[in-house]
C-alpha cells in the first residue's frame, strides 16, 4: 500500500487545557492528508464539482494512541483502500516526526453523489478514470 506523507506543526491554538492536541483537531489533519493525496490526481473538491460530483463523508473512525503538544512536528500519512463498492475509504496515520511514534490512526468513508445530490452506485467517464488512478497508485506494493 502506498501512503502519501505531509508534515505539519502542532499550533498553540490546537492544544487543549491539558497541553495535548485536542482530539477533534485530528480530523483537520486527516483533511490535510486527504487534500494532499487528492491534489495529485486532480480530485480536489473543486475539481470533483467541475466533473459534477461531491463526496460527503458518511463514516469516521479514529483511535488515539499517544499525545502530542504545541510546537511538535507531525507527519500525516494518507492512503485509499481498494474499494469494493462505489465509495472511497481513506486511511490515515498521524506520527510524531521525531521518532515516528504512532499518535493516531483512523479512516473515513465517502459516498459519491452528483452535484444535485443523487447518489451514484457506479462511476463513469473522467471521474472514474481519475479515481482509478488514485486507487491504483495507493494499491501499489
Amino acid at each position, binding site marked *: 500500500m502506498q501512503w502519501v506523507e505531509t508534515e505539519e506543526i502542532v499550533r498553540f491554538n490546537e492544544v487543549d487545557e491539558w497541553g495535548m492536541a485536542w482530539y477533534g483537531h485530528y480530523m483537520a489533519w486527516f483533511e490535510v492528508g486527504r487534500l494532499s493525496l487528492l491534489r495529485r490526481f486532480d480530485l480536489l473538491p473543486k475539481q470533483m464539482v467541475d466533473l459534477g460530483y461531491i463526496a460527503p463523508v458518511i463514516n469516521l473512525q479514529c483511535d488515539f494512541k499517544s499525545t502530542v503538544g504545541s510546537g511538535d512536528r507531525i507527519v500525516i500519512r494518507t492512503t485509499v483502500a481498494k474499494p469494493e463498492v*462505489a465509495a472511497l475509504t481513506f486511511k490515515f496515520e498521524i506520527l510524531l516526526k521525531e521518532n515516528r511514534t504512532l499518535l493516531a490512526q483512523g479512516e473515513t468513508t465517502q459516498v459519491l453523489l452528483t452535484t444535485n445530490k*443523487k447518489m451514484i452506485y457506479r462511476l463513469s467517464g473522467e471521474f472514474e478514470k481519475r479515481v482509478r488512478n488514485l486507487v491504483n497508485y495507493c494499491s501499489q506494493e
Partner: protein
Amino acid sequence: MKKNKRNNELEEIVNNSEAMCEFLKKMIIETLKLEHVTVGEIDRYAPLFRKGLGLDSIDALELVVAIEKIFNVIIEDEEVGKIAFASIDALAHFIQKKYEQG
C-alpha cells in the same frame, strides 16, 4: 454475458416470482451479513431502506455489486435504486425485466 451461456438454474429462479423473492431475501441477508434477520421475517412488500429493513446507503452499494455479479444487471444510481429497492417484490420485478432484456 450471452443468454444461452447463462446458468439455467438461475434463469429458472428469475422467472419464478416466488422463488426469486426467496432468493433475493437470502442474497440480502448473506451480502449484508444480517445475522439477526431470517428470510421469514422479511416482508416481500416492505421497503428495504429506512423504515422497512432499515438498510443504509452503503448497504445499497453492496447490494448493487452483488446483483451485478449474480444477475449481470446494473443499477446505476439512486434514481434507479429508488425503483429497484422499493421492496423485495419490486427488486424481483426489476431484475426479471432487465434479465429478459439481456
